[in-house]
Protein backbone atom coordinates (compact mmCIF):
# COMPACT_ATOMS: atom_id res chain seq x y z
CA UNK A 1 0.00 0.00 0.00
CA UNK A 2 1.24 3.45 -0.91
CA UNK A 3 0.30 7.06 -0.37
CA UNK A 4 0.43 8.26 -3.96
CA UNK A 5 4.00 7.45 -4.96
CA UNK A 6 5.19 7.55 -1.34
CA UNK A 7 5.79 4.74 1.12
CA UNK A 8 6.52 1.24 -0.14
CA UNK A 9 8.81 -1.51 1.08
CA UNK A 10 12.38 -0.61 0.19
CA UNK A 11 14.08 -3.21 2.34
CA UNK A 12 16.60 -6.02 1.92
CA UNK A 13 14.98 -9.22 0.66
CA UNK A 14 15.27 -10.97 4.02
CA UNK A 15 12.78 -8.51 5.54
CA UNK A 16 10.06 -9.11 2.97
CA UNK A 17 8.67 -12.26 4.64
CA UNK A 18 8.58 -10.75 8.17
CA UNK A 19 6.88 -7.62 6.80
CA UNK A 20 4.29 -9.75 5.06
CA UNK A 21 3.76 -11.71 8.26
CA UNK A 22 3.30 -8.45 10.18
CA UNK A 23 0.90 -7.05 7.62
CA UNK A 24 -1.18 -10.20 7.68
CA UNK A 25 -1.29 -10.32 11.48
CA UNK A 26 -2.20 -6.64 11.68
CA UNK A 27 -4.94 -6.90 9.07
CA UNK A 28 -6.45 -9.84 10.91
CA UNK A 29 -6.31 -8.20 14.32
CA UNK A 30 -7.20 -4.60 13.65
CA UNK A 31 -10.89 -5.33 13.30
CA UNK A 32 -10.91 -8.17 15.81
CA UNK A 33 -13.32 -7.27 18.62
CA UNK A 34 -11.25 -8.94 21.32
CA UNK A 35 -8.06 -7.16 20.24
CA UNK A 36 -9.86 -3.83 20.03
CA UNK A 37 -11.41 -4.15 23.44
CA UNK A 38 -8.11 -5.23 24.99
CA UNK A 39 -6.34 -2.24 23.47
CA UNK A 40 -9.16 0.04 24.54
CA UNK A 41 -8.96 -1.35 28.07
CA UNK A 42 -5.28 -0.51 28.40
CA UNK A 43 -5.63 2.90 26.76
CA UNK A 44 -8.39 3.85 29.22
CA UNK A 45 -7.31 2.25 32.44
CA UNK A 46 -3.56 2.26 32.06
CA UNK A 47 -2.59 5.09 29.73
CA UNK A 48 -5.32 7.51 30.76
CA UNK A 49 -7.49 8.00 27.67
CA UNK A 50 -9.48 9.91 26.69
CA UNK A 51 -7.26 12.94 27.16
CA UNK A 52 -8.96 16.32 27.68
CA UNK A 53 -9.45 18.87 24.95
CA UNK A 54 -8.71 21.97 26.96
CA UNK A 55 -9.77 25.50 26.05
CA UNK A 56 -6.70 27.65 26.68
CA UNK A 57 -8.64 30.67 27.86
CA UNK A 58 -5.75 32.74 29.18
CA UNK A 59 -3.66 32.28 26.07
CA UNK A 60 -6.66 32.96 23.82
CA UNK A 61 -7.46 36.21 25.66
CA UNK A 62 -3.86 37.32 25.63
CA UNK A 63 -3.56 36.83 21.87
CA UNK A 64 -7.01 38.28 21.19
CA UNK A 65 -7.78 36.11 18.17
CA UNK A 66 -9.09 32.60 17.50
CA UNK A 67 -10.03 30.26 20.32
CA UNK A 68 -7.11 27.97 21.09
CA UNK A 69 -7.78 24.43 22.25
CA UNK A 70 -5.08 22.06 23.45
CA UNK A 71 -5.36 18.30 22.94
CA UNK A 72 -3.70 17.17 26.13
CA UNK A 73 -1.66 14.14 25.06
CA UNK A 74 0.90 15.40 27.57
CA UNK A 75 -1.36 14.05 30.31
CA UNK A 76 -1.01 10.48 29.14
CA UNK A 77 0.97 7.99 31.17
CA UNK A 78 4.62 8.32 30.06
CA UNK A 79 3.99 11.97 29.24
CA UNK A 80 3.49 11.75 25.50
CA UNK A 81 1.35 10.32 22.70
CA UNK A 82 3.94 7.62 21.93
CA UNK A 83 2.24 5.17 24.27
CA UNK A 84 -0.89 4.96 22.02
CA UNK A 85 1.27 3.16 19.50
CA UNK A 86 3.55 1.14 21.77
CA UNK A 87 0.70 -0.55 23.62
CA UNK A 88 -0.99 -1.34 20.31
CA UNK A 89 2.11 -2.82 18.71
CA UNK A 90 3.20 -4.66 21.87
CA UNK A 91 -0.22 -6.34 22.04
CA UNK A 92 0.11 -7.24 18.38
CA UNK A 93 3.62 -8.65 18.93
CA UNK A 94 2.33 -10.78 21.74
CA UNK A 95 -0.47 -12.15 19.58
CA UNK A 96 2.14 -12.93 16.92
CA UNK A 97 4.11 -14.94 19.45
CA UNK A 98 7.13 -12.63 19.48
CA UNK A 99 8.60 -12.31 22.96
CA UNK A 100 11.17 -9.62 22.28
CA UNK A 101 10.66 -6.00 21.26
CA UNK A 102 13.32 -3.80 19.74
CA UNK A 103 12.89 -0.08 19.24
CA UNK A 104 14.81 2.96 18.13
CA UNK A 105 14.71 6.15 20.11
CA UNK A 106 16.01 9.68 19.71
CA UNK A 107 15.34 11.64 22.87
CA UNK A 108 14.20 8.51 24.60
CA UNK A 109 10.43 9.13 24.63
CA UNK A 110 9.59 6.26 22.32
CA UNK A 111 12.14 4.09 24.09
CA UNK A 112 10.46 4.83 27.41
CA UNK A 113 7.00 4.19 25.96
CA UNK A 114 8.22 0.86 24.54
CA UNK A 115 9.84 -0.09 27.84
CA UNK A 116 6.54 0.67 29.58
CA UNK A 117 4.56 -1.46 27.14
CA UNK A 118 7.10 -4.26 27.51
CA UNK A 119 6.91 -4.14 31.30
CA UNK A 120 3.11 -4.07 31.17
CA UNK A 121 2.80 -7.02 28.81
CA UNK A 122 5.80 -9.07 29.92
CA UNK A 123 7.98 -8.66 26.83
CA UNK A 124 11.74 -8.26 26.74
CA UNK A 125 12.74 -4.83 25.43
CA UNK A 126 15.97 -3.64 23.85
CA UNK A 127 16.25 -0.04 22.71
CA UNK A 128 18.75 1.31 20.18
CA UNK A 129 19.81 4.86 20.90
CA UNK A 130 22.48 6.99 19.25
CA UNK A 131 25.55 7.28 21.48
CA UNK A 132 25.25 11.04 21.35
CA UNK A 133 21.61 10.90 22.46
CA UNK A 134 22.51 8.50 25.28
CA UNK A 135 24.86 11.19 26.51
CA UNK A 136 22.33 14.04 26.10
CA UNK A 137 19.36 12.16 27.60
CA UNK A 138 20.76 10.46 30.66
CA UNK A 139 17.50 10.62 32.60
CA UNK A 140 15.54 8.79 29.92
CA UNK A 141 18.26 6.16 29.66
CA UNK A 142 17.98 5.63 33.40
CA UNK A 143 14.19 5.57 33.13
CA UNK A 144 14.29 2.84 30.47
CA UNK A 145 16.66 0.78 32.58
CA UNK A 146 14.39 1.14 35.61
CA UNK A 147 11.54 -0.13 33.46
CA UNK A 148 13.55 -3.23 32.73
CA UNK A 149 14.72 -2.40 29.21
CA UNK A 150 18.21 -2.66 27.88
CA UNK A 151 19.61 0.42 26.15
CA UNK A 152 22.14 -0.20 23.39
CA UNK A 153 24.22 2.85 22.42
CA UNK A 154 24.78 3.17 18.66
CA UNK A 155 28.20 4.43 17.65
CA UNK A 156 27.80 4.29 13.88
CA UNK A 157 27.17 7.19 11.50
CA UNK A 158 26.00 10.41 13.10
CA UNK A 159 25.20 8.57 16.35
CA UNK A 160 21.64 9.88 16.44
CA UNK A 161 18.10 8.70 15.66
CA UNK A 162 18.59 7.70 12.03
CA UNK A 163 21.54 5.53 13.00
CA UNK A 164 19.51 3.98 15.79
CA UNK A 165 16.92 2.98 13.15
CA UNK A 166 19.67 1.50 10.95
CA UNK A 167 20.94 -0.52 13.89
CA UNK A 168 17.47 -1.72 14.87
CA UNK A 169 16.95 -2.88 11.27
CA UNK A 170 20.29 -4.71 11.39
CA UNK A 171 19.12 -6.44 14.56
CA UNK A 172 15.78 -7.31 13.00
CA UNK A 173 17.23 -9.01 9.90
CA UNK A 174 18.94 -11.44 12.27
CA UNK A 175 16.19 -11.90 14.86
CA UNK A 176 12.80 -11.45 13.18
CA UNK A 177 11.79 -15.00 14.01
CA UNK A 178 11.24 -14.09 17.68
CA UNK A 179 11.48 -10.28 17.62
CA UNK A 180 9.03 -7.53 16.75
CA UNK A 181 10.54 -4.22 15.64
CA UNK A 182 8.35 -1.63 17.30
CA UNK A 183 8.81 1.47 15.14
CA UNK A 184 7.87 4.65 16.96
CA UNK A 185 6.60 6.87 14.20
CA UNK A 186 4.67 6.78 10.93
CA UNK A 187 7.88 5.91 9.10
CA UNK A 188 9.57 2.76 7.84
CA UNK A 189 8.40 0.17 5.31
CA UNK A 190 4.75 -0.71 4.83
CA UNK A 191 2.75 -1.62 6.95
CA UNK A 192 4.34 0.56 9.64
CA UNK A 193 3.19 4.01 8.45
CA UNK A 194 -0.40 2.76 8.17
CA UNK A 195 -0.37 0.73 11.36
CA UNK A 196 1.18 3.46 13.52
CA UNK A 197 -1.26 5.99 12.03
CA UNK A 198 -4.18 3.74 12.95
CA UNK A 199 -2.97 3.44 16.53
CA UNK A 200 -2.43 7.21 16.78
CA UNK A 201 -5.72 8.15 15.12
CA UNK A 202 -7.41 7.80 18.49
CA UNK A 203 -6.13 11.36 19.09
CA UNK A 204 -8.10 12.78 16.16
CA UNK A 205 -11.21 10.70 16.80
CA UNK A 206 -11.42 11.98 20.37
CA UNK A 207 -10.67 15.54 19.28
CA UNK A 208 -13.49 15.48 16.76
CA UNK A 209 -16.00 14.18 19.28
CA UNK A 210 -14.86 16.63 21.94
CA UNK A 211 -14.85 19.75 19.79
CA UNK A 212 -18.30 18.92 18.45
CA UNK A 213 -19.50 18.49 22.03
CA UNK A 214 -17.96 21.74 23.26
CA UNK A 215 -18.31 24.03 20.25
CA UNK A 216 -20.83 22.23 18.11
CA UNK A 217 -18.50 22.83 15.19
CA UNK A 218 -15.36 21.48 13.62
CA UNK A 219 -12.14 23.40 14.19
CA UNK A 220 -10.94 25.81 11.50
CA UNK A 221 -7.32 24.81 11.93
CA UNK A 222 -5.46 21.90 13.47
CA UNK A 223 -1.77 22.37 14.18
CA UNK A 224 0.71 19.62 15.12
CA UNK A 225 4.47 19.25 15.10
CA UNK A 226 6.11 16.92 12.59
CA UNK A 227 9.32 14.96 13.05
CA UNK A 228 8.50 11.50 11.71
CA UNK A 229 4.94 12.76 12.05
CA UNK A 230 3.00 10.31 14.23
CA UNK A 231 1.20 12.75 16.51
CA UNK A 232 0.34 14.93 13.51
CA UNK A 233 -1.07 12.06 11.45
CA UNK A 234 -2.88 10.89 14.57
CA UNK A 235 -4.80 14.12 14.94
CA UNK A 236 -5.06 14.93 11.19
CA UNK A 237 -6.31 11.63 9.91
CA UNK A 238 -9.92 11.64 11.12
CA UNK A 239 -10.27 15.16 9.66
CA UNK A 240 -8.86 14.51 6.19
CA UNK A 241 -12.32 14.26 4.62
CA UNK A 242 -13.48 17.41 6.43
CA UNK A 243 -12.24 19.80 3.78
CA UNK A 244 -13.09 22.92 5.77
CA UNK A 245 -10.46 22.03 8.38
CA UNK A 246 -6.99 23.36 7.61
CA UNK A 247 -4.29 20.89 8.64
CA UNK A 248 -0.90 22.39 9.41
CA UNK A 249 2.22 20.41 10.22
CA UNK A 250 5.08 22.27 11.86
CA UNK A 251 8.63 21.11 11.25
CA UNK A 252 11.79 22.13 13.05
CA UNK A 253 13.62 25.00 11.39
CA UNK A 254 16.36 24.65 14.03
CA UNK A 255 18.75 27.57 13.79
CA UNK A 256 17.00 28.66 10.58
CA UNK A 257 16.45 26.86 7.28
CA UNK A 258 19.04 29.09 5.62
CA UNK A 259 21.75 27.92 8.05
CA UNK A 260 21.33 24.29 7.00
CA UNK A 261 21.00 23.39 10.70
CA UNK A 262 17.43 22.16 10.82
CA UNK A 263 15.33 19.05 10.30
CA UNK A 264 12.57 20.36 8.03
CA UNK A 265 12.47 17.57 5.47
CA UNK A 266 9.11 18.55 3.91
CA UNK A 267 9.94 22.25 3.76
CA UNK A 268 13.51 21.89 2.54
CA UNK A 269 14.14 18.24 1.56
CA UNK A 270 13.99 16.24 -1.65
CA UNK A 271 12.32 12.99 -2.52
CA UNK A 272 14.37 9.95 -1.63
CA UNK A 273 14.40 6.44 -0.20
CA UNK A 274 15.57 5.53 3.28
CA UNK A 275 14.43 3.28 6.11
CA UNK A 276 12.21 1.32 3.78
CA UNK A 277 10.14 4.21 2.43
CA UNK A 278 9.98 6.69 -0.39
CA UNK A 279 9.43 10.10 1.12
CA UNK A 280 11.13 13.48 1.59
CA UNK A 281 14.63 13.50 3.04
CA UNK A 282 17.35 16.01 3.77
CA UNK A 283 20.16 14.83 1.55
CA UNK A 284 22.86 15.94 -0.86
CA UNK A 285 23.00 15.57 -4.65
CA UNK A 286 24.41 12.04 -4.34
CA UNK A 287 21.59 10.94 -2.05
CA UNK A 288 23.75 10.93 1.08
CA UNK A 289 21.50 11.62 4.03
CA UNK A 290 22.25 14.87 5.87
CA UNK A 291 22.79 15.37 9.56
CA UNK A 292 20.05 17.39 11.18
CA UNK A 293 19.48 19.74 14.06
CA UNK A 294 16.60 20.72 16.30
CA UNK A 295 16.39 21.80 19.91
CA UNK A 296 13.58 19.23 20.14
CA UNK A 297 15.20 15.81 19.93
CA UNK A 298 11.89 14.25 18.84
CA UNK A 299 11.90 16.31 15.65
CA UNK A 300 15.56 15.67 14.88
CA UNK A 301 15.12 13.24 11.97
CA UNK A 302 16.15 13.75 8.31
CA UNK A 303 12.98 12.21 6.88
CA UNK A 304 9.23 12.22 7.40
CA UNK A 305 6.40 9.73 7.17
CA UNK A 306 5.21 8.98 3.60
CA UNK A 307 1.60 9.94 4.31
CA UNK A 308 2.74 13.46 5.16
CA UNK A 309 4.69 13.58 1.91
CA UNK A 310 1.45 12.65 0.19
CA UNK A 311 -0.67 15.16 2.14
CA UNK A 312 1.83 17.85 1.15
CA UNK A 313 1.93 16.81 -2.50
CA UNK A 314 -1.86 16.59 -2.74
CA UNK A 315 -2.22 19.94 -1.00
CA UNK A 316 -4.52 18.59 1.73
CA UNK A 317 -2.13 19.64 4.49
CA UNK A 318 0.31 22.53 4.73
CA UNK A 319 3.77 22.31 6.21
CA UNK A 320 5.70 25.14 7.78
CA UNK A 321 8.77 25.37 10.00
CA UNK A 322 9.50 27.06 13.31
CA UNK A 323 12.95 27.81 14.75
CA UNK A 324 14.46 26.70 18.06
CA UNK A 325 14.04 30.25 19.39
CA UNK A 326 10.38 30.50 18.44
CA UNK A 327 9.69 27.14 20.07
CA UNK A 328 11.46 28.24 23.24
CA UNK A 329 9.36 31.40 23.41
CA UNK A 330 6.18 29.36 23.04
CA UNK A 331 7.40 26.98 25.75
CA UNK A 332 7.81 29.88 28.17
CA UNK A 333 4.56 31.51 27.10
CA UNK A 334 2.40 28.46 27.72
CA UNK A 335 4.11 27.79 31.03
CA UNK A 336 3.32 31.29 32.26
CA UNK A 337 -0.15 31.82 30.82
CA UNK A 338 -1.66 28.37 31.33
CA UNK A 339 0.59 26.63 33.83
CA UNK A 340 1.40 23.92 31.30
CA UNK A 341 4.95 22.96 30.34
CA UNK A 342 4.79 21.64 26.79
CA UNK A 343 7.37 19.33 25.26
CA UNK A 344 9.75 21.28 23.04
CA UNK A 345 8.38 19.31 20.09
CA UNK A 346 4.81 20.40 20.85
CA UNK A 347 6.07 23.94 21.48
CA UNK A 348 6.83 24.11 17.74
CA UNK A 349 3.17 23.52 16.95
CA UNK A 350 2.14 25.96 19.63
CA UNK A 351 4.47 28.68 18.33
CA UNK A 352 2.90 28.52 14.89
CA UNK A 353 -0.64 28.29 16.27
CA UNK A 354 -0.07 31.43 18.36
CA UNK A 355 1.15 33.27 15.33
CA UNK A 356 -1.88 32.49 13.18
CA UNK A 357 -4.47 32.67 15.99
CA UNK A 358 -3.64 36.36 16.44
CA UNK A 359 -4.70 37.07 12.88
CA UNK A 360 -7.92 35.04 13.05
CA UNK A 361 -11.33 36.14 14.24
CA UNK A 362 -12.61 35.42 17.73
CA UNK A 363 -15.21 32.89 16.64
CA UNK A 364 -12.69 30.73 14.84
CA UNK A 365 -11.13 27.67 16.44
CA UNK A 366 -7.55 26.43 16.45
CA UNK A 367 -6.69 23.04 17.93
CA UNK A 368 -3.07 22.36 18.88
CA UNK A 369 -1.91 18.83 19.50
CA UNK A 370 0.02 19.12 22.74
CA UNK A 371 1.75 15.84 22.05
CA UNK A 372 3.92 15.68 25.15
CA UNK A 373 4.90 17.35 28.38
CA UNK A 374 8.02 19.42 28.86
CA UNK A 375 9.56 18.01 32.01
CA UNK A 376 12.01 15.98 29.94
CA UNK A 377 13.27 19.21 28.36
CA UNK A 378 13.93 21.24 31.49
CA UNK A 379 17.70 20.79 31.24
CA UNK A 380 17.80 21.96 27.63
CA UNK A 381 15.41 24.84 28.26
CA UNK A 382 17.32 25.96 31.32
CA UNK A 383 20.56 25.99 29.39
CA UNK A 384 19.03 27.85 26.45
CA UNK A 385 17.37 30.45 28.66
CA UNK A 386 20.46 31.10 30.75
CA UNK A 387 22.24 31.94 27.53
CA UNK A 388 19.65 34.64 26.96
CA UNK A 389 18.25 35.48 30.39
CA UNK A 390 16.12 38.28 28.96
CA UNK A 391 13.52 35.82 27.65
CA UNK A 392 12.29 34.95 31.13
Amino acid sequence: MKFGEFGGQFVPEVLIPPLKELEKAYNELKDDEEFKSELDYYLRNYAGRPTPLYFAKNLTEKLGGAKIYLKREDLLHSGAHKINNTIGQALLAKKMGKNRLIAETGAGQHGVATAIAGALLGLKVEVYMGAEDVERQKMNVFRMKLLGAEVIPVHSGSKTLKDAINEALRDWVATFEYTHYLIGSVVGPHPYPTMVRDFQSVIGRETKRQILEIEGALPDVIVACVGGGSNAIGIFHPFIEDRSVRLIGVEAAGKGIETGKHSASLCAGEKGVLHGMLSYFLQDEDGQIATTHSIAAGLDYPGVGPEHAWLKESGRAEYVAVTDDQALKAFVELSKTEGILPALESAHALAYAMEIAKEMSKDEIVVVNLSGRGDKDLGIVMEALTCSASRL
Partner: protein
Amino acid sequence: MFRKPALITFITAGDPNVKATLDFMLTLDKYSDVIELGIPFSDPMADGKAIQKANVRALKAGTRVRDVFNLVREFREYSDTPVVLMTYYNPVYRRGVERFVAEAKENGANAMIVVDLPLEEAGEYLNVCEKYDMGTVFLAAPNTPDDRLRMIDEASSAFVYLISLYGTTGAREKLSQLAFDLLKRAKRICSKPLAVGFGVSKAEHVRELVKAGADGVVVGSAIVDIIGKYGEDAIDPLEEKLKELRSGLIF
Protein backbone atom coordinates in the same frame (compact mmCIF):
# COMPACT_ATOMS: atom_id res chain seq x y z
CA MET B 1 28.72 -13.38 -16.98
CA PHE B 2 31.54 -15.32 -15.36
CA ARG B 3 33.40 -18.58 -15.59
CA LYS B 4 32.49 -21.07 -12.90
CA PRO B 5 33.27 -21.49 -10.13
CA ALA B 6 33.91 -17.81 -9.61
CA LEU B 7 35.57 -15.89 -6.85
CA ILE B 8 33.72 -12.58 -6.49
CA THR B 9 35.45 -9.99 -4.37
CA PHE B 10 33.98 -6.83 -2.89
CA ILE B 11 35.49 -3.52 -1.85
CA THR B 12 33.97 -0.13 -1.12
CA ALA B 13 34.89 2.54 -3.66
CA GLY B 14 36.88 5.40 -2.19
CA ASP B 15 38.09 3.49 0.86
CA PRO B 16 40.47 4.94 1.99
CA ASN B 17 40.52 7.10 -1.17
CA VAL B 18 39.66 6.83 -4.85
CA LYS B 19 43.23 6.47 -6.05
CA ALA B 20 43.96 3.58 -3.70
CA THR B 21 40.75 1.88 -4.82
CA LEU B 22 42.00 1.63 -8.39
CA ASP B 23 45.21 -0.04 -7.14
CA PHE B 24 43.15 -2.43 -5.00
CA MET B 25 40.90 -3.28 -7.95
CA LEU B 26 43.93 -4.17 -10.04
CA THR B 27 45.11 -6.42 -7.22
CA LEU B 28 41.67 -8.04 -6.84
CA ASP B 29 41.66 -8.55 -10.60
CA LYS B 30 44.59 -10.95 -10.42
CA TYR B 31 42.61 -13.38 -8.28
CA SER B 32 38.96 -12.63 -8.94
CA ASP B 33 36.48 -13.52 -11.64
CA VAL B 34 34.14 -10.67 -10.79
CA ILE B 35 34.73 -7.47 -8.84
CA GLU B 36 31.93 -5.98 -6.80
CA LEU B 37 32.41 -2.29 -6.19
CA GLY B 38 30.39 -0.74 -3.40
CA ILE B 39 29.09 2.81 -3.76
CA PRO B 40 29.54 4.39 -0.34
CA PHE B 41 26.32 5.41 1.40
CA SER B 42 25.62 7.35 4.57
CA ASP B 43 23.17 4.74 5.92
CA PRO B 44 24.26 1.22 4.94
CA MET B 45 21.61 -0.60 6.94
CA ALA B 46 22.22 -4.07 5.49
CA ASP B 47 25.91 -3.96 6.33
CA GLY B 48 27.82 -5.06 9.38
CA LYS B 49 30.59 -3.14 11.12
CA ALA B 50 33.39 -3.78 8.61
CA ILE B 51 31.58 -2.38 5.58
CA GLN B 52 29.89 0.36 7.61
CA LYS B 53 33.32 1.62 8.57
CA ALA B 54 34.50 1.39 4.97
CA ASN B 55 31.52 3.55 3.95
CA VAL B 56 32.43 6.13 6.56
CA ARG B 57 36.08 6.19 5.43
CA ALA B 58 35.07 6.56 1.78
CA LEU B 59 32.63 9.39 2.45
CA LYS B 60 35.11 11.16 4.73
CA ALA B 61 37.55 11.05 1.84
CA GLY B 62 34.93 12.90 -0.20
CA THR B 63 34.00 10.07 -2.56
CA ARG B 64 31.17 11.00 -4.92
CA VAL B 65 29.03 8.80 -7.16
CA ARG B 66 30.76 10.40 -10.15
CA ASP B 67 34.13 9.22 -8.76
CA VAL B 68 32.89 5.64 -8.64
CA PHE B 69 31.89 5.75 -12.32
CA ASN B 70 35.28 7.23 -13.18
CA LEU B 71 36.97 4.43 -11.26
CA VAL B 72 35.22 1.83 -13.37
CA ARG B 73 36.23 3.66 -16.54
CA GLU B 74 39.87 3.79 -15.45
CA PHE B 75 39.80 0.14 -14.47
CA ARG B 76 38.51 -0.67 -17.96
CA GLU B 77 41.79 0.62 -19.40
CA TYR B 78 43.47 -2.35 -17.73
CA SER B 79 40.96 -5.15 -17.54
CA ASP B 80 37.79 -6.72 -18.93
CA THR B 81 36.88 -8.46 -15.69
CA PRO B 82 33.18 -7.90 -14.96
CA VAL B 83 32.45 -5.13 -12.49
CA VAL B 84 29.22 -5.21 -10.49
CA LEU B 85 28.18 -2.02 -8.74
CA MET B 86 26.66 -2.62 -5.34
CA THR B 87 24.57 0.23 -4.01
CA TYR B 88 21.67 1.26 -1.84
CA TYR B 89 18.71 2.65 -3.74
CA ASN B 90 18.80 6.28 -2.67
CA PRO B 91 21.92 7.26 -4.67
CA VAL B 92 20.24 5.67 -7.73
CA TYR B 93 16.86 7.27 -7.11
CA ARG B 94 18.35 10.69 -6.38
CA ARG B 95 20.37 10.74 -9.58
CA GLY B 96 17.39 9.43 -11.53
CA VAL B 97 17.25 5.71 -12.26
CA GLU B 98 17.77 6.12 -15.99
CA ARG B 99 20.63 8.57 -15.71
CA PHE B 100 22.35 6.38 -13.11
CA VAL B 101 22.12 3.19 -15.11
CA ALA B 102 23.12 4.91 -18.36
CA GLU B 103 26.20 6.47 -16.76
CA ALA B 104 27.18 3.24 -15.04
CA LYS B 105 26.93 1.37 -18.33
CA GLU B 106 28.76 4.02 -20.31
CA ASN B 107 31.68 3.82 -17.88
CA GLY B 108 31.96 0.06 -18.11
CA ALA B 109 29.92 -1.47 -15.29
CA ASN B 110 28.42 -4.85 -16.22
CA ALA B 111 25.74 -5.30 -13.60
CA MET B 112 24.17 -3.75 -10.53
CA ILE B 113 22.98 -4.93 -7.14
CA VAL B 114 20.61 -2.64 -5.28
CA VAL B 115 20.52 -3.92 -1.73
CA ASP B 116 17.25 -2.36 -0.61
CA LEU B 117 15.27 -2.65 -3.84
CA PRO B 118 13.07 -5.74 -3.73
CA LEU B 119 11.14 -6.90 -6.80
CA GLU B 120 7.96 -5.07 -5.80
CA GLU B 121 9.67 -1.71 -6.11
CA ALA B 122 11.89 -2.54 -9.06
CA GLY B 123 9.59 -1.94 -12.05
CA GLU B 124 11.21 1.18 -13.44
CA TYR B 125 14.68 -0.07 -12.57
CA LEU B 126 14.17 -3.33 -14.47
CA ASN B 127 12.90 -1.53 -17.57
CA VAL B 128 15.84 0.84 -17.55
CA CYS B 129 18.37 -1.97 -17.03
CA GLU B 130 16.91 -3.83 -19.96
CA LYS B 131 17.03 -0.73 -22.14
CA TYR B 132 20.73 -0.13 -21.38
CA ASP B 133 21.68 -3.80 -21.28
CA MET B 134 22.76 -3.50 -17.66
CA GLY B 135 22.98 -6.82 -15.85
CA THR B 136 20.72 -7.21 -12.82
CA VAL B 137 21.40 -9.15 -9.64
CA PHE B 138 18.70 -9.65 -7.03
CA LEU B 139 19.24 -11.10 -3.61
CA ALA B 140 17.48 -14.08 -2.09
CA ALA B 141 17.55 -15.04 1.58
CA PRO B 142 17.09 -18.30 3.48
CA ASN B 143 13.50 -17.27 4.23
CA THR B 144 12.64 -16.46 0.60
CA PRO B 145 9.82 -18.82 -0.42
CA ASP B 146 10.09 -20.93 -3.58
CA ASP B 147 7.68 -18.92 -5.71
CA ARG B 148 9.51 -15.73 -4.87
CA LEU B 149 12.86 -17.35 -5.57
CA ARG B 150 11.54 -18.14 -9.03
CA MET B 151 10.60 -14.48 -9.60
CA ILE B 152 14.00 -13.35 -8.35
CA ASP B 153 15.67 -15.75 -10.76
CA GLU B 154 13.63 -14.33 -13.63
CA ALA B 155 14.44 -10.73 -12.74
CA SER B 156 18.18 -11.40 -12.35
CA SER B 157 19.86 -11.27 -15.75
CA ALA B 158 23.45 -11.65 -14.47
CA PHE B 159 23.25 -13.95 -11.46
CA VAL B 160 21.28 -14.55 -8.28
CA TYR B 161 22.92 -13.53 -5.01
CA LEU B 162 22.11 -15.96 -2.20
CA ILE B 163 22.42 -14.57 1.32
CA SER B 164 23.95 -17.25 3.50
CA LEU B 165 22.40 -16.28 6.83
CA TYR B 166 20.00 -14.10 8.80
CA GLY B 167 21.92 -10.92 9.50
CA THR B 168 24.12 -8.24 8.00
CA THR B 169 27.33 -8.57 6.02
CA GLY B 170 30.44 -9.47 8.01
CA ALA B 171 33.02 -12.22 8.40
CA ARG B 172 31.87 -15.27 10.41
CA GLU B 173 33.82 -18.23 11.80
CA LYS B 174 31.57 -20.88 10.30
CA LEU B 175 29.08 -21.05 7.49
CA SER B 176 25.49 -21.49 8.54
CA GLN B 177 23.52 -24.58 7.52
CA LEU B 178 21.02 -22.07 6.12
CA ALA B 179 23.46 -21.33 3.31
CA PHE B 180 23.54 -24.93 2.14
CA ASP B 181 19.78 -25.37 2.46
CA LEU B 182 19.15 -22.25 0.39
CA LEU B 183 21.72 -23.25 -2.21
CA LYS B 184 20.16 -26.66 -2.56
CA ARG B 185 16.71 -25.14 -2.98
CA ALA B 186 17.94 -22.49 -5.42
CA LYS B 187 19.71 -25.07 -7.57
CA ARG B 188 16.42 -26.82 -7.99
CA ILE B 189 14.46 -23.67 -8.80
CA CYS B 190 16.78 -21.17 -10.50
CA SER B 191 18.23 -21.12 -13.98
CA LYS B 192 20.77 -18.31 -13.50
CA PRO B 193 24.22 -18.68 -11.94
CA LEU B 194 24.12 -18.72 -8.14
CA ALA B 195 26.57 -16.76 -6.03
CA VAL B 196 26.62 -17.10 -2.26
CA GLY B 197 27.68 -14.27 0.01
CA PHE B 198 27.50 -12.77 3.55
CA GLY B 199 29.81 -14.24 6.16
CA VAL B 200 32.14 -15.93 3.67
CA SER B 201 35.68 -15.15 4.76
CA LYS B 202 38.02 -18.13 4.32
CA ALA B 203 39.29 -20.54 1.68
CA GLU B 204 37.56 -23.31 3.59
CA HIS B 205 34.19 -21.51 3.22
CA VAL B 206 34.80 -21.01 -0.49
CA ARG B 207 35.63 -24.68 -0.91
CA GLU B 208 32.59 -25.90 1.00
CA LEU B 209 30.24 -23.71 -1.03
CA VAL B 210 31.73 -24.61 -4.40
CA LYS B 211 31.55 -28.29 -3.44
CA ALA B 212 27.90 -27.77 -2.58
CA GLY B 213 27.33 -26.42 -6.06
CA ALA B 214 27.71 -22.65 -5.84
CA ASP B 215 28.63 -21.04 -9.17
CA GLY B 216 30.25 -18.14 -7.39
CA VAL B 217 31.28 -17.13 -3.90
CA VAL B 218 31.33 -13.52 -2.69
CA VAL B 219 33.86 -12.30 -0.16
CA GLY B 220 33.53 -8.73 1.14
CA SER B 221 34.07 -7.93 4.79
CA ALA B 222 37.19 -10.11 5.13
CA ILE B 223 38.81 -8.05 2.37
CA VAL B 224 37.45 -4.73 3.54
CA ASP B 225 38.79 -5.45 7.03
CA ILE B 226 42.31 -5.64 5.59
CA ILE B 227 41.86 -2.24 3.95
CA GLY B 228 40.54 -0.92 7.25
CA LYS B 229 43.67 -2.14 8.99
CA TYR B 230 46.37 -1.22 6.47
CA GLY B 231 44.82 1.67 4.52
CA GLU B 232 46.74 2.56 1.36
CA ASP B 233 49.40 -0.02 2.27
CA ALA B 234 46.94 -2.90 2.03
CA ILE B 235 48.21 -4.31 -1.30
CA ASP B 236 50.53 -7.00 0.13
CA PRO B 237 48.21 -8.34 2.83
CA LEU B 238 45.36 -8.17 0.30
CA GLU B 239 47.32 -10.27 -2.12
CA GLU B 240 48.02 -12.82 0.57
CA LYS B 241 44.33 -13.06 1.52
CA LEU B 242 43.26 -13.31 -2.12
CA LYS B 243 45.71 -16.16 -2.77
CA GLU B 244 44.27 -17.99 0.20
CA LEU B 245 40.67 -17.47 -0.96
CA ARG B 246 41.57 -18.49 -4.50
CA SER B 247 42.98 -21.75 -3.19
CA GLY B 248 39.45 -22.56 -2.05
CA LEU B 249 38.41 -22.95 -5.68
CA ILE B 250 40.78 -25.85 -6.17
CA PHE B 251 40.07 -29.20 -4.62
